[in-house]
């Protein structure tokens, strides 16, 4: 066979490889890049929409097997890469940030900040460029959880603020704006002002994912963010117990009413487990997260166990996803990151044709 014929057969074979999330073959999706054929050697890149793709290895194997089976092909080299796509918008803020994920819960104390930090770490571990915005102005806990000393962020020209950096991630928090241990005592409008600053003046640089830790409830911060920030989607954190679900339900409805796509539900504190045994103790009951997901026809993104190590990790500023990525909790968070990233990609492909959040019309006459 000529190289030309081999190329035709290779493309035909790759057209039978489907992306299970996007329901299209990887050729039509435009994933195949840099195809090189020399004699019987075939090399190409598969450029996914996120480095956190949950089926990366599966796709690689399928490409190798299918191309390797073509007559005349002696050697196949598949290089998996990723280029994160942007959630399109024309708003003049956060223009260097490709996707913005808001982590919310109706209720306080369900572990939103812990989930935010570990979700961000897990996305970062895949090679994505990640930032964290601590939206909890009154009770910022992100600096402590990441072990970042409380120092004012560096400023630049035009009121620019440079975020702190830790574990390769950019971090901004109201915690940095006051002395350690001092409360920020502000009324609502000031709260909105700080969030505006975070959106407009922070030099994030190029980011694939910005994860925002929202405060509990459905108040000023949530409204300002949904109005001013081009959110890609929201993640709802709940515990399995009924009392937490009442408020989590409100969190989902908040996103629905402001038409921010709900990426899915995370159930935190799903069970307790000791280091010594695999036995799970469902101390807050069972099935709450799934019930919420079903109620709103939203994806169930994951269940995170409650184990002392997560708490220790948070208190010592070393998130468990960084220190122990292969522990049950680390694995749960990495799977969560993959599902969140996949859901964002799915939403981008299924995007409805409608006006975006930067729409403006000047009236004539």
């Amino acid at each position, binding site marked *: 066979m000529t190289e030309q014929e081999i190329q035709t057969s290779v493309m035909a074979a790759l057209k039978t490889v489907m992306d299970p999330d996007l329901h299209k073959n990887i050729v039509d999706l435009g994933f195949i890049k840099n195809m090189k054929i020399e004699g019987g050697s075939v090399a190409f890149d598969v450029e996914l929409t996120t480095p956190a793709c949950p089926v990366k290895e599966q796709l690689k194997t399928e490409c190798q097997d299918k191309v390797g089976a073509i007559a005349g092909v002696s050697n196949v080299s598949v290089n998996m890469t990723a280029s994160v796509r942007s959630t399109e918008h024309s708003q003049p803020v956060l223009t260097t940030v490709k996707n913005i994920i808001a982590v919310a819960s109706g209720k306080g104390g369900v572990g939103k900040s812990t989930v935010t930090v570990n979700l961000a770490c897990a996305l970062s571990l895949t090679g994505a460029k990640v930032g964290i915005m601590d939206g909890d102005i009154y009770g910022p806990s992100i600096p402590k959880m990441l072990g970042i000393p409380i120092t004012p962020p560096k400023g630049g020209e035009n009121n620019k603020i440079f975020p702190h950096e830790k574990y390769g991630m950019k971090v901004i928090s109201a915690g940095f704006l006051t002395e350690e241990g001092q409360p920020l005592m502000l009324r609502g409008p000031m709260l909105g002002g700080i969030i505006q600053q975070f959106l407009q003046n922070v030099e994030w640089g190029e980011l694939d994912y910005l994860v925002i830790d929202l405060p509990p409830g459905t108040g000023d911060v949530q409204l300002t963010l*949904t*109005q*001013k920030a081009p*959110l890609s989607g929201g993640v709802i954190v709940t515990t399995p117990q009924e009392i937490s679900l009442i408020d989590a339900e409100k969190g989902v*409805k908040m996103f*629905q*009413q*402001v*038409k*921010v796509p709900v990426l899915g539900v995370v159930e935190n504190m799903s069970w307790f487990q000791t280091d010594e045994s695999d036995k799970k103790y469902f101390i807050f009951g069972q099935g709450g997260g799934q019930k919420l997901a079903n109620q709103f026809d939203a994806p169930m993104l994951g269940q995170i166990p409650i184990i002392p190590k997560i708490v220790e990790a948070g208190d010592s500023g070393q998130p468990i996803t960084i220190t122990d990525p292969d522990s049950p909790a680390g694995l749960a968070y990495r799977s969560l990151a993959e599902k969140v990233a996949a859901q964002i990609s799915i939403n981008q492909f299924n995007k*409805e*044709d*409608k*006006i*975006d*959040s*930067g*729409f*403006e*019309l*000047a*009236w*004539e*006459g």
Partner: protein
Amino acid sequence: MEEKNPSPVEQRYQDKKELRKDQEDGPAPRNIKQIDPETLGITWTDDKESVYPVRMLRESCPCAHCIDEWTGQKRINPGDIPDTIRPLKIKAVGLYALQFDWNDGHSTGLYPYALLRKLEGKEPL
């Protein structure tokens, strides 16, 4: 027994409830354009085409200056809004509502998409 008429507060509660429901799973604008100096046109994601007299939109402003937040009573009366009312600019608020900058200086009303759908076909006072 005769059904008692709902009080203004009860009525307001009902109206808000319906609007919320529609807002959660209702359509969004696909295209928004000026049809003539007095008319706004919206094409929706469900293909419906709506036209709105801009004076009616100004009269229907849902903000707390124009509608009593508690009773739902309108504070704009027929004739309050002149024929010369025009938007200067229309902009999206997040992914869920439109905001109008009016030539009478008013701009505090946010019109959620479900409200715009409800105002379809309504005439000026």
